[in-house]
């Protein structure tokens, strides 16, 4: 899609009337076009006013549920060093929200329920890892949507050598999130690699860097997978697992 074509999507983009591919193309376009960003901001103000016409009193239970829910949802930090308003809010945040774990990790941990203590030491590593992931906003919002899906199923297994692998899947999204939090990296410079098993065939789903113990990975088409596995492989990963699985989560 060339620039002229993309630009014709301004109206549909503001109205969320584009598909995911077009939205991504337009987002790219926006990064290069200051004037377009201003257009989008202005038209968003107008389109948001359309919500005025739909104003409707929510069920009273919603307020209770939302206020109860935020108690267990940790907030995210701004993507970049924030401009002017940040200094005012930063001290408040640093007191209570010091242990800012990514929402993905937090929700998975909360959903998994057990082994909270085991995660405490992992939080930092997960956070570091997730901070990287958050740079990729698309992936992040996908994780968010997945973890928020009403049919989320969470399974967890120990990893040989210590730690856990947690798999959250949604049939609705036909996708899942694998979260690995191992106690220690494999020895001899070897690395963890993630797999899904589909029709008895292992499919590589991502390889961690040497020394890396935690990862959050989105897997599409999770509906066809029977298992999620973790194996220890040479740096860069393998085409098929070369060691017995260090963890095997049956879906």
């Amino acid at each position, binding site marked *: 899609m060339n620039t002229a074509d993309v630009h014709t999507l301004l109206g549909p983009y503001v109205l969320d*009337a584009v598909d995911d591919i077009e939205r991504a193309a337009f987002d790219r376009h926006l990064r290069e076009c200051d004037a377009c960003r201003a257009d989008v901001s202005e038209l968003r103000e*107008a389109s948001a*006013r*359309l919500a005025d*016409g*739909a104003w409707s009193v929510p069920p009273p239970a919603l307020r209770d549920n939302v206020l109860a829910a935020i108690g267990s*949802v940790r907030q995210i930090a701004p993507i970049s060093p924030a401009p002017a*308003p940040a200094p005012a*809010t930063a001290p408040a945040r640093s007191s209570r929200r010091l242990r800012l774990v990514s929402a993905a990790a937090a929700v998975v941990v909360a959903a998994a329920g057990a082994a909270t203590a085991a995660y405490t030491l992992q939080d930092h590593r997960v956070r570091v890892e997730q901070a990287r992931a958050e740079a990729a906003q698309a992936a992040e919002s996908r994780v968010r949507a997945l973890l928020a899906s009403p049919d989320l199923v969470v399974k967890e297994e120990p990893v040989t050598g210590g730690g856990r692998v947690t798999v959250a899947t949604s049939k*609705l999204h036909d996708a899942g999130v694998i979260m690995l939090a191992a106690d220690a990296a494999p020895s001899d410079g070897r690395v963890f690699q993630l797999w899904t098993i589909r029709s008895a065939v292992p499919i590589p789903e991502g390889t961690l860097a040497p020394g890396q113990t935690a990862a959050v990975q989105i897997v599409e088409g999770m509906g066809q997978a029977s298992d999620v596995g973790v194996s220890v492989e040479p740096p860069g990963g393998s085409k098929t697992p070369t060691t017995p699985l260090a963890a095997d989560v049956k879906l």
Partner: protein
Amino acid sequence: MAERGTSRRPEHLSAVPDPDPDPGDLLRAVAGGDEKAFARLYDLVAPRVYGLIRRVLRDPAQSEEVAQEVLVEVWRSAARFDPARGSATSWICTIAHRRAVDRVRSEQAASERLTYVGRAQVDVPYDAVADEVSGRLERQQVRRCLHDLTDLQREAVTLAYYQGHTYPQVAELLGAPLPTVKTRMRDGLIRLRDCLGAGAVA
């Protein structure tokens, strides 16, 4: 959190509330972890958020569920709000609309809802927009401004915004060429903006 159960109701039902706080100020406080500010923000925006989602999804139970997701998301990502890029209300509505549309599309594949609701909407685009509209000035203003659009602009904008249709779906429903629909959406929004004086609205 134990104290909330007793303290929040009286606060919520208070007959003489503080003058309406600015959603942008509240959102900044929320970004700092202020749960009280979040409760006030909730009271300010929840009817708009829930109403919008309900308009798109129709089903009350699903709407409640998605509204909860959205409002929790507002709490979670409040730090991402950038006042330089628009108002807090618009930021929140954008999240709500996007979520509602995602949900409606994930269900559309298997359902007849698309054509059924779509046709009904084309027959009465204006009434459908107006049916929940009552006395509040701002809502009257939106209605009036929608009325100022050309028929095709209004239908293109409302089919997309209130029904969650993509522009190719809108083109099909309206029997109009794709480029025309894209243009009508943009021009409709521009006209709406000019009518609402949206640039100046907080």
